[in-house]
């Protein structure tokens, strides 16, 4: 880890030395996420690679910005995360913290950032509270949030005819929130929820829950869980012939790295919402192939791509304002439209939510796939204005006041 960190710093320094003569602003960007645990494949070291690419692609040094990247592992612990954030802001002169998978850690870092008046741009962290009840003027929530996923998958599948749902819900706050948001989206789109079963966290065997879902006769089985729970549920659903029997599975929080881990044979037919997929257009393919060349052949996940794009947007704001003052840069970021090669056109709302189109994908059948990473086919594009929770429903305190 230290060696990798060293090269990142060296690369960033080398890049910045070239234009040292005209360097006016120097910024320090901290990538904080889960480097070795449950979510390491979703963000982890890949996010650091993406951050490094953003600084290089932006040609920060030529534009008079000296950008340096540091990274750390928060081990999915809120206390570790906020300790690192404090140290970065107080001692190491970090201006922006990025990524931060795991909702609980993201919320903790968000508090520290507000207290120190710096900037927080979460990409891997998913809770919609970051731009809702727990919003701060210092947050820009980039890639996705739980509301967008629930809404995308819930509404789109209901409209496609999957109008009766049964949930397998992880028995803790996150699962309950995901089930609630998706249920609302399903009901709003005219569907109905037939039932739900709460399963313990990290359950290995889902067959019993799947049979209950099967006997409910619901057209869609929503998986309101994450990580290995989702993977196990999907793997066993295929074993019990659930998808072959005409019921559809809907993953409510699943990334391309999870689908890769499952293999297409088990995951085929799964419908999911993502903000980014590497094989969408020439720009995403170009970025992803360069990313893969630097990262052991692995294609970027949407969380990793989000780190790249959020840094580009931040650096644009720094370039335009010639400043790194939090209030000045935040105002500029929210004023400038987003025109991003990876996430398309969008903007940042007053509550800090970066909005852009979301996409509904279906996992390909093995015979449709042309390569190791050829995983998804596009089912529907959810337009920017429908993809995220309307600002007035988020109950963000400072937006209401304003």
């Amino acid at each position, binding site marked *: 880890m230290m060696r990798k960190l060293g090269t990142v710093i060296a690369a960033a320094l080398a890049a910045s030395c070239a234009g040292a003569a005209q360097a006016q602003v120097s910024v320090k960007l901290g990538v904080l996420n889960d480097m070795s645990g449950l979510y390491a494949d979703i963000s982890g070291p890949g996010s650091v690679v993406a951050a490094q690419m953003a600084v290089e692609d932006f040609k920060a040094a030529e534009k008079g910005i000296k950008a340096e990247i540091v990274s750390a592992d928060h081990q999915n612990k809120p206390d570790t995360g906020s300790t690192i954030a404090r140290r970065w802001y107080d001692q190491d002169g970090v201006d922006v913290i990025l990524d931060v998978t795991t909702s609980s850690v993201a919320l903790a870092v968000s508090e520290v950032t507000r207290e120190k008046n710096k900037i927080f741009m979460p990409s891997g962290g998913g809770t919609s509270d970051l731009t809702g009840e727990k919003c701060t003027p210092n947050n820009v929530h980039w890639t996705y949030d739980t509301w967008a996923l629930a809404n995308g998958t819930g509404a789109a599948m209901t409209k496609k005819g999957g109008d009766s749902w049964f949930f397998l819900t992880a*028995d803790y706050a996150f699962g309950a929130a995901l089930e609630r948001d998706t249920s609302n989206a399903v009901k709003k789109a005219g569907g109905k929820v037939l039932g739900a079963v709460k399963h*313990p966290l990290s359950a290995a*065997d889902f067959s019993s829950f799947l049979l209950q879902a099967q006997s409910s006769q619901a057209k869609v089985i929503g998986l309101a869980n994450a990580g290995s729970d989702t993977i196990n549920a999907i793997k066993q659903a295929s074993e019990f012939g659930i998808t072959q029997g005409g019921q559809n599975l809907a993953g409510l929080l699943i990334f391309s790295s999870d689908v890769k881990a499952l293999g297409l044979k088990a995951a085929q037919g799964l419908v999911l919402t993502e903000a980014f997929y590497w094989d969408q257009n020439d720009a995403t393919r170009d970025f992803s192939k360069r990313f893969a060349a630097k990262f052991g052949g692995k294609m970027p996940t949407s969380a990793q791509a989000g780190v790249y794009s959020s840094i580009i947007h931040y650096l644009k704001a720094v370039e335009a304002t010639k400043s790194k003052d939090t209030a000045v840069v935040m105002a500029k970021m929210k004023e400038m439209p987003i025109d991003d090669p990876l996430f398309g056109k969008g903007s940042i709302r007053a509550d800090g939510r970066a909005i852009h189109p979301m996409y509904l994908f279906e996992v390909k059948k093995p015979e449709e796939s042309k390569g190791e990473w050829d995983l998804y086919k596009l089912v529907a594009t959810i337009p920017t204005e429908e993809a995220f929770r309307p600002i007035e429903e988020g109950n963000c305190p400072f937006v209401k006041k304003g």
Partner: protein
Amino acid sequence: MITIFGVPSAALFGQLLLGLINGSFYAILSLGLAVIFGLLNIINFAHGALYMMGAFVAWMLLNYLGIGYWWALILAPVIVGGVGILIERNYIAPLSFSDQRQSFVLIGATAIGFLVLSFGFSLSATLAFVGAAVIGVAAASIYAWKRPSQSSTVHVDHLYGLLLTFGLALIIQGLFRNQYGVSGLPYGIPPQLAGGQQIRLFDAPIMFMPNYRAWVIVASLIVCLATWFMIEKTKLGAYLRAATENPTLVSAFGVNVPLMITLTYGFGVALAAFAGVLAAPIYSVNPNMGADLIIVVFAVVVIGGMGSILGSIVTGFTLGLVEGFTKVFYPEASSTVIFVIMVLVLLVKPAGLFGRAS
């Protein structure tokens, strides 16, 4: 249709069958633990990690060497059992040696190996660590080769074995996590067992039973009964049981007790690996799969009675059934029900259902 507490009896029957499948995993794993505890007096916390290793070895055999499921079912337990034997000889047995020179050789060779591999050859930390462990174990084995194996001269508490194996489990899991990530790896059901049958009872469809799950029940029953037969009904088993009671006396009859103990540990570990291969096609093959399961399995062993062979088999299957029931009637409690039973059993029969009070 007859309903029981609002659940159709046919659906209930299906759920019980599923409970039995989970019970098969509990049974094989707790059987391995019981064999090891019974003979070595070691609470083997590395059992979960070795179960995970079994699944990973099956994956490696398929992806690196092209060897399929059926061979893996034999090879993975042999390979992991071999690793278990090395662990027993080089880490666990020296706990009770009065002469610690073998351990110094092990530690020294491992440390030097790690430094050379990670700086001399600039290997990644994971590979350097694995390489160093191999070098260390090889050096210690060569050192111990011609010396007569020491029988335990110092009596050590269970706690040391527990701590040691717990540490080993963390290291093994960490290495796999570093190398393969945490999302897990795909492993398919063997084509011969793909698909399934619709099970009917009096013409009422009960459930769709995947062939592979049926195979899991059959395979685990065979393995459990064979192990029970070997330990309770054969001459070898009699030696093993006698060595548990009084190792000094048995070695006075000319039986090589240390060798028997090593092989027993290897066998217990091989059982874990066998369960790992059985699990690979249906559960996510990831480095944490063992850690999630092992706590439940320990509860099963405690309920059955530490060291009781038959107890662990019967409790394994029974608790699978109980868990299956809970998943139907009150799914939120399905991960706790086993521990509730454990508390109740310990209150009433502290030695476990099948254990003997010592």
